[in-house]
């Protein structure tokens, strides 16, 4: 009886999954290298590929979009094996040496500087639909349902993965994230305090608090990620995911309203690098 019921449930689940993917049933995904993250996504294999994902930030980050950009660079890095990336933006403040510091091969990145929102989305659709593109990153204010659906169709046609960084223009209104969105997932990314190794001055590897706010066919969640290989000249291993899960903050229905903070009191840390110390001694 129990076997019969679970069999029926599995069949229904498969049917729902088929409906959600529009009957195309491709389930390629990119694993985060951690089961607790991967199981939030449909199929349990990690970030679904050949879809587009929406990422944004809060407060000042909604304008500068630095943390989402860094996070996207790390998310998209494993996809570059399939082809070069295209970065479409209205502002030209992306600094490729910063991408290189995160291990992103910025030397092959194709940067596209568009004039307005409509051009950004049109260029993204064109790039997603082209063959041989590994990842498409587009900075745009918002994407309505129609435009989102077009992006999704282009993803399926070109078998590329898209990332939309929600970014409002300087001094512009609030980012108008439409109620409905055709994105496969929606993330909110914020920088998180880093933890340098004990006894070492300066900053630790960069960390981000990433909360998965919406996920088609999956569950939301919130995690703290770290990029252990950032800003070091060690050779990057291809198989390892560039993001490492740091601490389990919670794998629950809602993102924690009050993000957990490190318990340490706000004390002044020794500031200044080795150079400064040496100069002071001299």
């Amino acid at each position, binding site marked *: 009886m129990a076997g019969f019921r679970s069999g029926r449930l599995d069949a229904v689940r498969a049917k729902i999954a088929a409906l959600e993917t529009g009957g195309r049933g491709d389930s390629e995904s990119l694993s985060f290298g951690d089961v607790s993250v991967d199981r939030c996504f449909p199929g349990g294999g990690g970030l679904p590929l050949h879809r587009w994902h929406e990422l944004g930030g809060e407060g000042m980050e909604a304008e500068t979009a630095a943390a989402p950009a860094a996070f996207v660079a790390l998310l998209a890095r494993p996809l570059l094996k399939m*082809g070069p990336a295209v970065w479409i933006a209205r502002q030209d403040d992306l600094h490729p040496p910063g991408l290189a510091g995160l291990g992103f091969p910025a030397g092959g990145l194709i940067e596209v500087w568009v004039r307005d929102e409509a051009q950004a989305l049109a260029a993204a659709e064109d790039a997603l639909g082209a063959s041989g593109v590994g990842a498409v990153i587009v900075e745009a204010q918002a994407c309505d349902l129609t435009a989102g659906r077009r992006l999704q169709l282009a993803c399926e046609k070109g078998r590329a993965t898209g990332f939309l960084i929600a970014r409002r223009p300087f001094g512009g209104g609030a980012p108008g994230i439409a109620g409905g969105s055709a994105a496969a997932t929606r993330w909110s990314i914020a920088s998180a305090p880093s933890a340098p190794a004990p006894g070492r001055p300066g900053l630790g590897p960069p960390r981000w608090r990433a909360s998965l706010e919406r996920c088609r066919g999956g569950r939301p969640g919130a995690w703290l990620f770290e990029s252990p290989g950032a800003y070091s000249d060690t050779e990057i291993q291809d198989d390892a995911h560039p993001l490492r899960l740091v601490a389990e903050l919670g794998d629950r229905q809602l993102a924690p309203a009050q993000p957990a903070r490190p318990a340490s009191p706000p004390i002044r840390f020794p*500031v200044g690098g080795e*150079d400064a110390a040496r100069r002071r001694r001299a």
Partner: protein
Amino acid sequence: METSRGTRRLAAVGRAAAALGLFPGQKAADALAYVPDLVTAEAEPEADAQALRALVDWCVRFSPAVAPDPPDGLFLDITGLAHLWGGEAALVADFRRRLARNDLPVVCGVADTPGAAWALARHGDGASLCPPGRQGEVLDHLPPSALRISEPACAQLERLGLRRIGEVRRLPRSQLARRFGLELITRLDQAMGEAPEALAFRRPANPWFDRLALAEPISTPEDLARVCGDIVERLCARLSAEGQGARRFEIAYHRVDGRPQTVEVGLAVGAREAPRITRLFLPRLDQVDPGFGVEQVTLAAFEVEALSASQAALASEQAAGGGIEIAPLVDRLANRLGAERVWTSQAVESHVPERAVARRAPLSPEPPARWDPAQPRPIRLFRRPEPIEATAPVPDDPPVQFRWRGQLHRVRLAEGPERIAEEWWKAPIGAVSATHVRDYYRVEDQAGGRFWIFRAGLYEAGAPARWWLHGLFG
């Protein structure tokens, strides 16, 4: 009418005025005294030059090698193509007929050398053909001014009673050179074909050129598109046969009224696939105004380079490394948005952050220079650093807090300084100053935001330190 040396003079005269005895260079007052009801207009050398350029472009229908000869002439190199019209005489007749239809009076001459043709056109009967190799006999009867020499030399020849080129040619060359300068000798030799003459063609001769003459003028968008496809296919077939590919194509629709309408497309990687190139042209054909109809189409390919034949199986392997597969995408974006809006960044060996990045065309070969990943650089670099109010109690230390865009950030961790000075070897040594030094710190605030800030100049007692925010690490 023009003003030269303080006097109003006639710059050019019409046919009727010439019949009345007026001539260019005559004083306006004299001319008006002869013909009181003379209609005059101000000379417009700019407009004339533009009209000449348009005429030169139109002449491409006869020969790809056309050189303007300002102010009012042009050279047409018809070497090896007169047979297409059935002989030089037929070509000249067609040329004159077409220009007459546009009400353009024309005189022309055909000869072995540009100099002789010029002399025949301006001083012959206006439609003379010089038989090959016999320009000497023809020119001997023309005045020395037909040699394109300067006014003073011409006047002096006249004074010495030398009224025919033949008389000049009989004089010893050494004396001619001494008396009239090298110019006369050079021009004489050029006219006779004994000295080379370089013509500045409006478009350098391009072997990758094709033209399609249409039986009937066309004007509908569908026809324009179809003709575009046809001519691209013809040129691409030639490119393919010779193993070449081009990176720039220019199509020109020549209208009945003689005005060419050009559309240009560029490609990131040389190509010769006709459907792909046609697809690049099609969205831009709406810029073409066919007017009363288009009677001829020309297509030229530029930046032609050897392109090895590609195999479908190899193409997929290349995609991982070379990115050849995405060349069509780059072309579409570059042609739609403008080539300067699509680029790939490359490293420049400079410590100044603004100069560390240069742009190159996508898919062009990558230079060996690399950014050092161990040097932390922000992911967003502001074009101009933003001033911040920072509190730094200890000189030469990063601030403990700073205010940026009205928001207070308490510094939790900091790293630095990384001192970046100006590139003193690029400027005169006197202009180098210690105030152009920047001490960069990477700081992290309580919320985790990572910033790249710097203090401008060295620490000076009494002077407040100036702090700037240059970028965000995210």
